[in-house]
């Protein structure tokens, strides 16, 4: 029924037809990303439990936090502590899901010629990048 709406029967922003299409893409991206993150988190968590390590890090959480220098290790897979890195990869994957959603929005708005919305989405992405830089600097 929703798809039967005429594409040209538009309001100034997104039409129902456009909203349905964008929502479908976003639904798939978030669903896949969340599943991937959960799999990584659970794999790391189970590995952590079976190896018998982990809970003592509660008192030394700062030492056990990943830093920029460990990101390359995470990507290359040269992990000293695989369970910990798997869990961090899961958290990082979860953080990246909304970013993937924003990139999807930018592409969609560009293809739909909603250039103002595209610029706004790019601005959000830039601010997210700035927050990452601030995070690195503070670290």
């Amino acid at each position: 029924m929703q798809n039967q709406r005429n594409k040209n029967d538009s309001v100034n922003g997104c039409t129902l037809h456009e909203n349905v299409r964008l929502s479908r893409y976003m639904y798939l991206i978030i669903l896949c990303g969340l599943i991937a993150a959960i799999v990584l988190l659970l794999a790391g968590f189970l590995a952590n439990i079976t190896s018998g390590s982990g809970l003592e890090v509660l008192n030394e959480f700062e030492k056990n936090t990943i830093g920029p220098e460990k990101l390359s290790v995470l990507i290359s897979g040269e992990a000293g502590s695989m369970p910990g890195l798997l869990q961090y990869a899961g958290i990082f994957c979860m953080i990246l899901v909304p970013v993937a959603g924003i990139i999807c929005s930018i592409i969609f708005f560009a293809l739909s010629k909603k250039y103002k919305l595209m610029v706004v989405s790019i601005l959000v992405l830039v601010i997210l990048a700035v927050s990452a830089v601030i995070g690195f600097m503070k670290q």
Partner: protein
Amino acid sequence: MILLLYLFLMGIFAGLIGSVIGIGGGIIVVPFLALALKIPIHLAIGTSIICVLATSLAASIRFFKKNIINPGLAMVLEIPTTIGSIAGSITVAFLKNNVLFIIFGCFTLASGIFTYVKNRWPLKFGAGMEPTASKSSIFDSEYYDQLSGKPVRYHVRKIAYGSALSTLAGFFSGLLGVGGGVIKVPAMNAIMDVPLKVATATSSYMIGITAVVSSVIYFFNGFINPVITVPAVAGVLIGAVSGSFAAGKIRTKYLVIIILAVFILIGILMFMRGFNILNY
């Protein structure tokens, strides 16, 4: 092992309550970790922000499937929200634990009263507000209302006011590890004329993007530990999914009274901890 079980059960409770009465889980996660498990409050906030992110993603999946999120509006309000969130995340490093406890206590009490009012008198506050005719903008949109069986068009107005309140919501999100939906939903509904369903759904999606900003900063500052975070996130996700199924079957009238009592208790405990009356 018992600690992991506590974290998991706490996550289920936070996710369940959050999805049934429409609040973020952060307001339950932070006090539980900080007061009951005696985890440093900065680490509790870092854990909470990841829980909030997980809850937002789970809710967004549901709302995108129903096609009621306005992505354009979410993007424009995310600009001031993320700026506020960056400010909040940076500020947290300069605040002493006591001050954070006191601010959290104030926020919890305000949220409890707001949640009670919103759920107790939905027709006077929230659902009864109908969109009014106004000048069209690029953020205008439409959604398919399942109750009426018709597409509903709406005009978005007063973007500037909404943006100002979104900055405040972002600041509290970054500072306290909460979602900030308590501020965003009424701002969108009452000030910007966005239908309540769309406001709630769009706010849920925005909370995830805002949480990304805070998460990255907390991540690199050493305030996120996976050993605590993973069982809490797993519990929150299970609780949120269960809550979405149970939402229509639970009598909200009595639940909000219990929630108000819990929030007042949490607020008082946070105040006591902040003023060093409750020491351990």
